[in-house]
């Protein structure tokens, strides 16, 4: 298409082109700019456009811009007089494919320029498409890596001990652990954990792998697996580190290593025994008011097989606190300055947060984050381990006084009469032992889960103390068939008498289903109202029961006989809890396909209340 307002100039151009090649082209000529723009907008038939101008002044370049806007993919050649210096450059910069001098506009030169322009534009388009394809691919790849990193970060975070597990395990020792984790943008190689030594002492470790990224994260998993293997077998931190170091040397390529701190608390001797390989020195606070950095000199794991580790001991009486941290605390830049905080500065800062009440981890972390600024260059892990000054609670005494008969596949049950006068609970991984555990002389059954029995709820122990029964299972086990029938059969044997056992069964079944579905698995109600919803609901249940985090959450049933002959049945879960009181007040229409469990319980029970922020339902029948 040619746009040229001057008829004579247009004719001259068209004639020249025709002479050069009478049949190889068709040119539509427009003299009016609006017509030309309209034609360019509507038609996709043109291969190129020519703009004839007396000179490429700003008004002419404005026309060029309008034509480009009308047909962005079309190459446009400017035919004009370019006698002013730089005018052709300006036209090319403005987007013209080529500039042909009117004087040179012999037909052949013009046609050649047009052909080249068409080919060039085609190549450009293909290149553009290729660039787009590649950058889309890069974006997708980038996104994939980001997502994988996020998954890796979550998985790594999950390796850290949960507060519930810690509380369960450490409570009896009178040890309180608080932890904080602030992820950086990158994925790091930090890990801390808690286990037990061969004689049951609580043991703690922090480790940090060299480098960042996936490689460091994978190494964390490797070492975590090794540490898990050693759980319960650590008798001397130096031997344990030697063993870990040997395995790390075999496992890690040269250049990769991990700093480590490993300590056990000897409750009787009131001592902390530790060994270390170059970890950031923990800060020890003792009730006499002193605070000091512990010596952590030693070769990091994975550097040399001949490394030897030194055992160090210090008093760790009740009231003492140990603060462990990752090097992000001392090696990050302080705000915009180039300086780092350093260990001595951290010691000074941390002093303000230790008092007779223990160590205020939140306070220190807040101060630390304000000082360091964000985002952090590395993951920040902070752990405070405090020996409580007070003696453990009544439940701890109960726990200590209970005889737990641990049955495994290979062990025959011990003779429970050995513990005459003390209540017995059976602990086992085998669900076929439940019926035995719920039958005298046992007073309950607790499943040995990945967390052993340390996270069994206080309610279980208190129920046994009140001459009741307890059952503590993981959500996955509680969902197995026949559990409710076994509980009711046991109750009928133990609390014989005239009772509405069908009502007891319905209440326990409904409360248990609620605790599993809504409490442990976190599935919202209402999703299964239609046949189409059943699939989704089944999938949610299946996925939940396979989820290593949710499936192991304990669901507990306790039954206590009251003096008036009624039974107090409590069903607990470890979910986020919900507003049971409100639910208990709501009504359910007849024929509803979901949400009627609580309504049923309310109909049957004399009293229904919720406890523990909606995690426990207490029913009296």
């Amino acid at each position, binding site marked *: 298409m040619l746009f040229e307002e001057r008829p004579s100039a247009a004719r001259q151009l068209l004639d020249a082109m025709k002479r050069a090649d009478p049949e190889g082209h068709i040119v539509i000529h427009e003299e009016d700019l609006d017509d030309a723009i309209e034609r360019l907008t509507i038609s996709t038939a043109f291969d190129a456009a020519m703009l004839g101008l007396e000179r490429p002044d700003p008004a002419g370049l404005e026309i060029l811009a309008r034509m480009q806007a009308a047909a962005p993919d079309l190459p446009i050649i400017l035919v004009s007089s370019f006698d002013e210096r730089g005018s052709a450059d300006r036209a090319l910069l403005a987007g013209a494919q080529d500039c042909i001098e009117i004087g040179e506009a012999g037909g052949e030169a013009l046609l050649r320029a047009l052909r080249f322009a068409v080919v060039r534009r085609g190549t450009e388009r293909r290149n553009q498409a290729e660039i787009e394809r590649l950058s889309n691919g890069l974006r997708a790849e980038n996104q994939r890596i980001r997502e994988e990193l996020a998954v890796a970060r979550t998985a790594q975070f999950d390796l850290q001990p949960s507060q519930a597990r810690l509380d369960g395990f450490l409570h009896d020792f009178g040890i309180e652990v608080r932890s904080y984790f602030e992820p950086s943008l990158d994925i790091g190689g930090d890990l801390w954990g808690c286990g037990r030594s061969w004689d049951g002492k609580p043991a703690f470790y922090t480790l940090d792998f060299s480098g960042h990224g996936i490689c460091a994260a994978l190494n964390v998993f490797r070492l975590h697996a090794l540490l898990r293997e050693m759980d319960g077998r650590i008798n001397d931190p130096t031997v344990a580190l030697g063993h870990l170091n040997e395995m790390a040397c075999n496992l890690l390529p040269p250049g990769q290593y991990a700093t480590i701190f490993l300590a056990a608390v000897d409750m009787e001797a009131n001592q902390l025994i530790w060994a270390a390989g170059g970890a950031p020195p923990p800060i020890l606070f003792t009730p006499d008011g002193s605070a000091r950095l512990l010596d952590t000199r030693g070769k990091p794991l994975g550097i040399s097989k001949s490394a030897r580790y030194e055992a160090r001991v210090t008093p760790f009486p009740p009231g003492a606190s140990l603060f462990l941290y990752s090097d992000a605390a001392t090696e990050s830049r302080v705000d915009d300055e180039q300086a780092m905080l350093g260990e001595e500065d951290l010691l000074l800062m941390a002093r303000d947060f230790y008092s007779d009440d223990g160590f205020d981890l939140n306070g220190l972390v807040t101060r630390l984050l304000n000082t360091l600024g964000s985002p952090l260059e590395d993951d920040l892990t902070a752990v405070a381990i405090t020996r409580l000054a007070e003696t453990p609670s009544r439940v701890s005494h109960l726990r200590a006084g209970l005889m737990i008969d641990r049955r495994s596949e290979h062990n025959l049950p011990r003779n429970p009469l050995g513990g005459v006068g003390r209540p017995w609970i059976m602990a086992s991984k085998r669900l076929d032992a439940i019926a035995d555990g719920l039958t005298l002389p046992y007073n309950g059954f607790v499943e040995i889960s990945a967390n052993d029995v340390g996270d069994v709820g206080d309610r279980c122990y208190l129920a046994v103390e009140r001459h009741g029964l307890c059952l503590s299972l993981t959500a996955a086990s509680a*969902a*197995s*068939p*026949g559990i*409710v*029938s076994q509980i009711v059969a046991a109750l009928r044997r133990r609390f014989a008498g005239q009772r509405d*056992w*069908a*009502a007891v*069964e*319905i209440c326990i*079944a*409904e409360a248990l*289903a609620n605790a*599993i*579905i809504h409490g442990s698995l976190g599935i919202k109600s209402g999703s*299964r*109202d*239609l*046949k189409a919803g*059943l*699939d989704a*609901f*089944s999938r949610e*249940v*299946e996925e939940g029961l396979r989820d290593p985090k949710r499936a192991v959450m304990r669901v507990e049933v306790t039954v206590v006989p009251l003096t008036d002959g009624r039974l107090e049945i409590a069903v607990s879960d470890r979910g986020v809890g919900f507003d049971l009181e409100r639910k208990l007040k709501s009504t359910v229409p*007849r*024929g*509803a*396909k*979901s949400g*009627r*469990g609580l309504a*049923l319980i309310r*109909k*049957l029970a004399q009293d229904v209340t919720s406890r523990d922020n909606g995690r426990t339902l207490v029913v009296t029948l």
Partner: protein
Amino acid sequence: MNFQIEEDRNGVCVHMAGDLNFAANAEFKAVLDKLGHVAGRSVTFDLAKVPHIDSVGLGLLYIAKEEVVAAGTKIRLRSPQANVMKLLKLTDADADFEILG
């Protein structure tokens, strides 16, 4: 939960064995899928071997009812055990389903 489907000229009988509760979802959905072709005849759920039904299981029966009644089919529950019957009565479900002794 196990299901066995028996069919004659009058309709379909679903013999159920085991607890009908939230864990029986997937199997129950499979049964519903198989009942699509019985339009106009009757569907009987034989509960003789179901020791226990919870509210989720009851919800499943209501979904079944909605599905088959929409297709012009009658739905019945047969031989519920005493405690199952108690639940059906408590929830007024005995008025929504035809129950055979």
